[in-house]
């Protein structure tokens, strides 16, 4: 498979993977730690959405499904396809508990991306496509245009019924 096309497809797949799992696990609902609330208020002051700001703050302050996706891809690339993802899930769980978070989102993301890598390896995807694709996906949320990304995340949270109750 062509390398550039594979990277772009992997970026789209991992974007949907971690955004859907994070929203379903209730990241936009409430700030888990105190630092996430400050980042959300700052995003709102600059013209963004509060729920999307909480989402971005929670990603900064503890390893969530985004970290699970990236680390499981790295471990699948270096260790081997089914075993690496399972080892990464255990290590992400302990890292989550160190950062004062229950740890559901991280392990779910790691296990689901392991299944996706195993299934798409039959049609020619390699795990390194998913590593670069995950970095591109996190760049579109945290790096390029933060207030627009927070508005998009807020709209998605409203559609999935996980909108924040704090005003």
């Amino acid at each position, binding site marked *: 498979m062509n390398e550039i096309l594979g990277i772009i497809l992997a970026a789209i797949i991992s974007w949907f993977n971690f955004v859907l799992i994070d929203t379903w696990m209730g990241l936009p609902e409430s700030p888990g730690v105190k630092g996430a609330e400050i980042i959300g208020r700052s995003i709102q002051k600059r013209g963004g959405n509060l729920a999307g700001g909480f989402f971005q703050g929670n990603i900064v302050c503890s390893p969530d499904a985004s970290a699970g996706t990236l680390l499981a891809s790295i471990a699948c690339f270096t260790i081997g396809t*089914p075993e*690496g993802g399972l080892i990464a899930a*255990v290590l992400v769980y*302990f890292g989550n508990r160190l950062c*004062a978070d*229950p*740890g*559901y989102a991280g392990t779910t993301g790691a296990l689901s991306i392991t299944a996706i890598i195993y299934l798409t390896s039959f049609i020619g995807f390699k795990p390194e496509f998913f590593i670069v694709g995950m970095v591109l996906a996190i760049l579109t949320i945290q790096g390029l245009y933060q207030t627009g990304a927070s508005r998009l995340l807020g709209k998605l949270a409203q559609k999935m019924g996980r909108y924040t109750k704090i005003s």
Partner: protein
Amino acid sequence: MIIHANVFSYFIALAAALILSLVLRLPLLPDKPMRNSWTISAVFPTAVLSVGFYAMAYELGYHGYLVALITGIITALFAKFILEKVVPRPEGEESHE
């Protein structure tokens, strides 16, 4: 599609951890608002931990069904007695200063 012989070892580890943790009176599922409860239950994290620990033992060179069984038993005991002390739940905002 080829089913690895290794898959049965993962199932043995998972089943051993689940059954022993139910015998040890851990609850099957976490409390009801499931995405922000802190209770240690049988499905999460004991099953995930058992599969992950067996993957570690497999990578270190120990194969076989007996290794899977021992890994499951050790994981259930670990989750029941030691895990609460290794990763304690935070009391308030002051705990992660």
